[in-house]
């Protein structure tokens, strides 16, 4: 259910404690009194959240859930474009940008900026991945105006001082040494090198790339990553749309309007190697990771695969991999599978750990279970259980401000539409046994999976 609510933006004072959470019952009457509406708020009354969607007078697109019961505000900001835009040889540049976002701005050096955040009892920090650059902040509503002013300074006048820059380099050079014995990093890297060695997703920082970075390069990269026209905002808290719009416009005033981000190619995956890729690491357990091609978020079979994954390895103790390899055989503390989506790669992946002595049995067990799905699919009871959990537990993802802000950002990034929360369960309920078993045959054959084993595994042929 969607209807419009018109608001006089300019006339609204910042009064965060008085929060309007109820939409006006008769919007038509209000329209007549408005001569120059500055902001249109589209109220989407959904099953899990009442989302107020608007574009600020400054042009920023915002989804807000007003939640007056706790005096805090959770704010998420995201821009498409991230580490894949680092120039060749400058891997780590986008990470340097986000590292610096709370390390000094305007008159405040790093220590003064951090001290100011403590005085305001706020958090503000940014991060970057392959496809996206994000900032998030939590603040007490009584400090929201000051907190947003500080964020405005960070966006408009970041300092990129030598001190934090050199610290970033020191930390990263140590991180490059440490990752060489991290089982998860070794597994991820081996997997990337096997599946898409030449794609930007496989690029890593190096001693050379970190050493080649400069504050001036970071300043330039920031103006490429953080721009007004690609900015998505979601917020949950004790605030009205009109108050939030004013604060956001002020916060992002110093950002450039737009920038060019180079297009990145999609990945077409090669056939998986017949044998597992072994990475030696002296530790008592072997980490077994496996990845196959997945499904795009808008693939007609996506929900079918999502429901199937619950029975494969996404449903905790209700999944077959856990039932067989943990509960029956005692081979592992945990094994899981999941679907993942990014702009240029969709995967169906899983992993678990077992003692080195049982690595061969564990690997065989995973193969056997996957083969079983291909051969016989799932039972009607398994399908019912999966659908019952996936639909019944959905509300649990909406019980905190931070979770709701995150969920909305996910929907915005994946472009699923404002009604997604309300239609999602129906899509899960509509999945049929025939569909699930067809998708199992198409996707779960073990020969589609690249296996990587990190440790000192025994019994691997």
């Amino acid at each position, binding site marked *: 259910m969607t209807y419009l609510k018109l608001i006089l933006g300019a006339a609204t004072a910042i009064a965060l404690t008085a929060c309007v959470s109820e939409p006006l019952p008769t919007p038509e009457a209000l329209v007549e009194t408005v001569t120059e509406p500055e902001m249109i708020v589209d109220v989407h009354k959904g099953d899990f959240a009442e989302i107020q969607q608007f574009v600020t007078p400054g042009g920023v697109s915002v989804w807000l859930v007003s939640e007056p019961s*706790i005096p805090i505000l959770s704010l998420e900001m995201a821009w498409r474009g991230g580490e894949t835009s680092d120039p060749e040889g400058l891997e780590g540049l986008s990470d340097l940008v986000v590292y610096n976002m709370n390390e000094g701005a305007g008159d405040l050096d790093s220590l003064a900026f951090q001290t100011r955040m403590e005085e305001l009892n706020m958090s503000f920090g940014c991060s970057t991945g392959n496809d996206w650059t994000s900032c998030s902040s939590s603040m007490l509503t009584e400090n929201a105006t000051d907190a947003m002013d500080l964020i405005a300074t960070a966006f408009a006048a970041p300092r990129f001082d030598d001190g934090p820059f050199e610290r970033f380099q020191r930390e990263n050079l140590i991180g490059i040494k440490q990752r060489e014995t991290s089982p998860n990093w070794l597994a991820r890297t081996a997997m990337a090198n096997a599946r898409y060695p030449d794609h930007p997703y496989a690029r890593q920082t190096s001693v050379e790339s970190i050493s080649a970075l400069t504050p001036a390069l970071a300043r330039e990269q920031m103006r490429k990553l953080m721009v007004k026209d690609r900015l998505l905002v979601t917020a949950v808290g004790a605030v009205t749309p009109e108050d939030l719009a004013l604060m956001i416009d002020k916060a992002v005033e110093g950002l450039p309007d737009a920038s060019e981000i180079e297009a990145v190619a999609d990945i077409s995956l090669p056939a998986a190697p017949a044998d597992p890729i072994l990475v*030696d690491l*002296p530790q008592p*357990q072997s980490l077994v990771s496996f990845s196959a091609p997945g499904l795009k978020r808008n693939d007609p079979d996506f929900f079918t695969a999502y429901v199937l994954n619950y029975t494969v390895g996404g449903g905790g103790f209700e999944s077959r991999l856990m039932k067989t390899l943990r509960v029956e*055989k005692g081979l592992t503390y945990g094994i899981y599978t999941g679907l993942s989506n990014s702009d240029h790669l969709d995967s169906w992946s899983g992993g678990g750990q077992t*003692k080195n002595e049982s690595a061969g049995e564990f690997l065989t067990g995973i193969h056997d279970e996957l083969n079983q799905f291909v051969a016989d699919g799932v039972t009607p009871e398994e399908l019912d259980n999966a659908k019952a959990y996936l639909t019944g537990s959905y509300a649990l993802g909406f*019980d905190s401000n*931070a979770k709701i802000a995150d969920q909305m950002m996910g929907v915005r990034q994946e472009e699923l539409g404002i009604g997604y929360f309300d239609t999602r369960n129906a899509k899960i309920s509509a999945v049929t046994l025939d569909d699930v078993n067809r998708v199992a045959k198409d996707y779960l054959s073990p020969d589609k999976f690249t296996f990587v084993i990190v440790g000192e595994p025994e019994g691997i042929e």
Partner: protein
Amino acid sequence: MKRIITGGLLAVALLCPGAMADDAAWAPETFTLDNGMEVVVVPDHRAPVVTHMVWYKVGAVDEDEGKSGLAHLFEHVMFKETENLGPEEFTTIVQRNGGQLNAFTSWDYTAYFERVAKPQLGKMMELEAERMVNLKINDDPEGPFISERDVVKEERRQRIENNPGAILQEQVLSMLWKGHPYEITVIGEMDEVAALTPEDGMAFYEKYYSPENAILVVAGDVGADEVRMLAEETYGKIAPTGTVDGTRKWAPVPLLTENALIVHADPKVRQPSWSRYYSGLSQSRQRRESYALDVGLSVLGGGMTSRLYQALVEDEQVAIDVNTYAWTTLHDEGPAIISASPVDGVSLDDLDTAVMAEVRKVLAEGFTDAEVERARNSLAAEAIYGRDSQSSMANLFGSTLALGGTVDDILNYPDEIRSITTDEALAAVRNVFGEDRHYIEAELVPAEGGV
């Protein structure tokens, strides 16, 4: 994925108090059932969901000699089978009802939880009440109890033995708590876990799992009247067993009497690190002093603005990181820790000298009122942010009460923290890191040769 969050080593100290004394809207209600089971209801009406927890006042501290790991292994066994539920059916029913579930074990308590949409709350109570009184343990020598032991051994490898830092910490804590029931980590010694039997499990169950030894916590979209009605229909029907008298093996942890050095060299270590573990405090034994210590350690080494970070990471650039913190949320005293990691070219001995020189300097000069005020306001604000998470709130009330604390301890926390003076914060830190105190120095270093 993970059935427990213990391993004991790291997780326990992280529960931080939360709540706000000046806000009656979410005020929790408490009452006791006729059979002695305590109940806490924490209203949160933002979403139609509830977090349902049962906390048992039993943990690794209660294990007999040679039976380390029993409390935790037993927690796994609670998911297996009851008179009215088939093997693994408990989980199937909860998840079929759209519920998320898990459990965790500490030295001081064991807790089980389900998060569900509100209409399922009564069903969850039926299930938890069923396994409070009707658990069955299969004694087949090749059966589920035995395979669960193997699972726990894998869990121990995953949490501790794969991880050089955790291996070192286990050794250090074992020395710090020598002779105290905390000496052995929650997950237990590998050989003792391997020798646990179904009979051990059943004896443990019969002794410790009873309504009078349990606390029910329900947080979420529900009121006390409704919880009382549902609880009386389920838990209320279980007779008390009279097998525990409320005493635990808790005891004050003696101060360290000499300095010690523990070095763990491991081929997986690429970046050395250094720590000193001192005898610390616990909120249960010295609540106000513990709060003062938290405030003081925040000023000394609690983040980027702290004295140690500014001196050693920013100015002298001898450390890549430095921290001070204390485990104050166990019932008995945990460690107060100073830790640091060197930049390239600085030895751990030089790092030790530089860090301790700075600690002595700060403690001699004292703290400013402004930095103490920032620290205590940050801690008080965390209590407000903590209210955003229903499960955090349920955990906070459950763990506080399981240790013998009160609802008022939680409600008064922000005011109490804000009332800590500069002198109190300084005195607490000076006391714990005093020149007359002993410590265990822990060094994590690369093994000769490396990978």
